[in-house]
């Protein structure tokens, strides 16, 4: 018997088992930190960063990536169409590097589309998904992660470690960037907030949450690569479109229509600002 198998410490290495916020009763809000000294936050953030790094190798985003890959490669629409016919800007069926090169101009639809918008477009066109169904629940919740979110996760993962390179060649791509830049700085609503109120300066934070200055490439990439991201609070994937939506909620704005031109423009501004930076997503978030 050459093989002498013994097991070591099963429980001790269950790294991710602490990501259990979703398991708390919904009503119980996390108690505010009551430690004495102010500016303790650096320590808290550092601790979380360590935790996040441990999880990065086993990011549950991979589960959704695998599901998305299966849909992309195997799912057939009416008439046998597949996502192999979907052109994400680099040719039909080409996924590698496509995510970090959107938003871009798509001549077939005469529109600038961000990655999420293009992927949904393809899933409707080739796989027979109904757009109104997708719009009914565009974002994941603890009951269900929609298929398009898994496909986005798969497509995003195929750009991991590649440089962000959203094109600025077509006049409409430039237009999207310019309009997005304006939307970013536009103050309105009962609180007079714009995106820039929170994301236009260095070193700011809300509570303990660091706020990247999205006007700077090295900071913009931090926000960019967080999404799609696995949210440990809740245990599901959320996308860039969700992030924009929820920012506008907190900005006290009305709700932006899912996959609308305004969001594509804003994403064009943010992505182009992050151009040249290396994409390390899909992300993992608290």
């Amino acid at each position, binding site marked *: 018997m050459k093989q002498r198998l013994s097991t070591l410490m099963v429980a001790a290495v269950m790294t991710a088992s602490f990501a*259990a916020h979703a398991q708390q009763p919904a009503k119980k809000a996390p108690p505010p930190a009551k430690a004495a000294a102010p500016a303790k936050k650096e320590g808290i953030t550092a601790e979380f960063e360590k935790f996040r790094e441990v999880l990065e190798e086993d990011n549950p985003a991979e589960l959704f990536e695998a599901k998305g890959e299966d849909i992309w490669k195997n799912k057939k629409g009416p008439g046998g169409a597949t996502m192999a016919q979907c052109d994400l800007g680099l040719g039909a069926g080409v996924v590698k590097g496509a995510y970090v090169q959107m938003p871009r101009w798509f001549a077939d639809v005469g529109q600038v589309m961000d990655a999420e918008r293009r992927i949904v477009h393809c899933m409707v066109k080739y796989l027979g998904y109904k757009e109104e169904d997708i719009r009914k629940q565009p974002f994941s919740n603890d009951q269900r992660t929609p298929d398009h979110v898994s496909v986005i996760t798969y497509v995003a993962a195929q750009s991991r470690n590649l440089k962000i390179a959203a094109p600025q060649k077509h006049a409409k791509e430039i237009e999207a960037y310019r309009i997005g830049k304006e939307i970013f700085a536009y103050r309105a609503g009962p609180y007079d907030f714009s995106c820039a109120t929170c994301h236009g300066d260095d070193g700011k934070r809300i509570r303990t949450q660091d706020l990247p200055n999205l006007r700077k490439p090295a900071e913009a990439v931090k926000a960019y690569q967080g999404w799609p991201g696995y949210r440990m609070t809740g245990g599901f994937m959320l996308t860039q479109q969700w992030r924009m939506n929820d920012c506008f909620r907190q900005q006290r704005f009305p709700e932006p229509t899912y996959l609308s031109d305004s969001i594509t423009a804003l994403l064009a501004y943010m992505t182009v600002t992050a151009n040249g930076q290396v994409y390390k997503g899909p992300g993992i978030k608290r």
Partner: protein
Amino acid sequence: MADPMKIRAQMKGDTAEIRVLMSHAMETGQRKDNAGATVPAHFIQAITVDVGGKRVIQGQTSTSVSRNPVFGFKVKGAKVGDKVVIHWEDNKGDKRTDEAVIAA
């Protein structure tokens, strides 16, 4: 039907490091949904790991484990090319088996 696991198995010296990511809701039975109704408990309760045809782990889990959990094991004496078979069953009778091969 449950979604597939992601299994990583690699030799580190004389020890195989096996990590597995499972796709599961892991509901505690204590959480309430938006409508205020209790979400029924739904969790993985049994896990087995076979390496090279031999059972190396047989374990029970409960609701204290997170949604989409990650487990890591270290197995001594395994070798490159050994088949790793991981199986789980939950309290509703749903189950899933996935395989991987230990890489160098």
